[in-house]
């Protein structure tokens, strides 16, 4: 039962082959059996899950269920969940119980989705390996000595190990796509503004976007359809109508042109990873896609531009954590207000979060603002314009999701630059606000790798359909790590 997709489980529930309660118990059992090893969950909400499943069973019986009613999923612990601890994997919020639900949590709950729990992540979503979590690293289900990627590492590991059929995530620089690639699952970051950010703890507000990690593109369509759409509580929410993604993915294939930036295949990409990618592109060609070499002349500048813009926004966003209204408060006695704030924040934040706050403070400080922050915003425009130009000729831009398969726990923690370079292929889509998806596309040294497709704004339906057609002719997305099959 645990290897079935959301689409299959939805049909099972409707045909009464299984009840929502049985399904929820099955996944709670799997979490109990495997999570001591994986550490994918920060909080497991067994009681609430069983109550929600019972309600879903009633709704299924009454006949007013949605396609999602009774499906269990996990939420990244960055989304506020009323009455449930919402920690963002930080000591700062270890005692925080959210007083309200994030919009996406509320929408999925209204559709009848059952929340299994809250998944582990990098602290405040700052990391690419899930090693900055206050609750310890998550293990990659393919090899417990390796990282699952990050920051949505708990969500990715949970889905890859099939201890949850799907999970939500957020993506500021690759935090959905990179862990999806490193654990062999599907992950999509929609267009900036497509999914409400209300109740999603802010990291870098002009880059953050919520999305999903699933087994298949079809499942991603199903979940995204319920999450996306206008929300007056998010001032950057798009009011464009949400297409019927789950129907559209099954519509006839249209001929598409896929742009391939040759610079993505330079020395930075591991040779076997490049080989897997070429095979995947060939597969898309066989489906009828036309491949076209393109250039993104400024894409190599996306990492430095990001590491100015994101920390600058983070340093502002994280100034709200002062230990007064919520969050960690130091036990040490403070003599004045300044040292009180400094202690609360100094003890409440972990080293990577502190580094990002300090980087942000540096690039925004007097005398450096023009040279760093303003210059990074100009480079951001150049990166974005490259995509706009490319999309005049092609429907998608394809490339690798990551430079190599999953790396070892502790292998890159000593060198922030090496860690940051993991997101070299994913950051561009965040800077430009574009939808992007990672699909499992091969195996390198026994480990999964991903194919990334980036699309023009609001082309999620086309992206998901291409993913769905690709997954009809490939089986990489069906591979489950041996210990969890």
């Amino acid at each position, binding site marked *: 039962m645990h290897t079935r997709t959301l689409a299959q489980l939805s049909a099972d529930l409707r045909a009464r082959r299984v009840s929502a309660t049985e399904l929820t118990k099955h996944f709670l059992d799997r979490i109990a059996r495997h999570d001591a090893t994986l550490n994918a969950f920060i909080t497991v909400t067994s009681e609430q899950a069983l109550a929600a499943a019972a309600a879903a069973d009633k709704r299924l019986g009454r006949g007013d269920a949605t396609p999602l009613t009774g499906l269990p999923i996990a939420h990244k612990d960055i989304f506020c969940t009323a009455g449930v601890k919402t920690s963002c994997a930080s000591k700062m919020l270890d*005692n*925080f*119980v959210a*007083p309200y639900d994030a919009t996406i949590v509320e929408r999925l709950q209204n559709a009848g989705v059952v929340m299994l729990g809250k998944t582990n992540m990098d602290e405040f979503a700052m990391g690419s390996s899930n090693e900055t979590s206050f609750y310890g690293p998550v293990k990659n289900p393919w090899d417990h000595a390796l990282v699952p990627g990050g920051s949505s590492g708990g969500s990715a590991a949970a889905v890859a190990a099939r201890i949850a059929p799907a999970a939500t995530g957020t993506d500021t620089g690759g935090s959905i796509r990179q862990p999806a690639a490193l654990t062999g699952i599907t992950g999509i970051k929609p267009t*900036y*503004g497509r999914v409400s950010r209300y109740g999603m703890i802010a990291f870098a507000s*002009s880059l953050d976007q919520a999305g999903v990690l699933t087994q298949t593109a079809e499942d991603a369509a199903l979940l995204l359809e319920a999450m996306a759409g206008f929300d007056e509580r998010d*001032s*950057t929410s798009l009011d464009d109508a949400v297409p019927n993604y789950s129907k559209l993915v099954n519509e006839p294939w249209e001929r598409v042109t896929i742009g391939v930036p040759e610079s993505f295949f330079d020395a930075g990409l591991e040779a076997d990873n490049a080989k897997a990618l070429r095979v995947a592109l060939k597969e898309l060609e066989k489906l009828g896609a036309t491949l076209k070499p393109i250039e993104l002349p*400024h894409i190599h*500048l996306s*990492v*430095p*531009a990001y*590491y*100015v813009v994101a920390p600058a926004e983070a340093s502002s966003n994280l*100034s709200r954590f002062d*230990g*007064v*209204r*919520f*969050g960690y*408060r130091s036990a040490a*006695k*403070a*003599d*004045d*207000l300044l040292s*009180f704030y*400094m*202690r609360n*924040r*100094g003890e409440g934040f972990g*080293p990577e979060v*502190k*580094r990002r*706050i*300090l*980087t*942000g*403070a*540096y690039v925004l400080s007097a005398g450096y603002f023009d*040279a*760093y922050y*303003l*210059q990074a*915003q*100009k*480079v*951001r*425009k*150049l990166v*974005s314009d490259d995509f706009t130009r490319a999309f005049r000729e092609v429907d998608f831009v394809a490339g690798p999701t990551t430079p190599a398969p999953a790396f070892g726990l502790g292998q890159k923690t000593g060198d*922030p*630059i090496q860690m*940051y370079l993991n997101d070299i292929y994913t950051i561009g889509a965040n*800077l*430009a*606000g*574009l939808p992007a998806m990672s699909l499992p596309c091969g195996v390198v040294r026994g480990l999964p790798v991903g194919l990334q497709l980036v699309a023009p704004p609001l082309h999620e339906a086309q992206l998901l359909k291409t993913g769905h057609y690709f997954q009809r002719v490939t089986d990489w997305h069906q591979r489950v790590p041996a210990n969890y099959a």
Partner: protein
Amino acid sequence: MLGPDDIRRLCRLARLDISATEIADASAKLSSIVAMVDQLQAVDTAGVVPMAHPLDRPQRLRADVVTDVDRHELYQRNAAQVERDLYLVPKVIE
């Protein structure tokens, strides 16, 4: 290169306590981050309009009316110290 004094100044600006042992590490790592982002200085951006945001649309306005209800009791449950509906902080005025 960001030295210990730079780190201490930034920590004060960012309201972050930092231990003496953390300073050397922060200095080394922040210096390498700044060296990496320094690549941006070489890019010709004359005439480029800075991009603050990916949404090329006007910001929405809503009617200026109260839409929220008073939920201070619920919100204050997350506070470390509350008295008579007020958040408490250390005394700073003698």
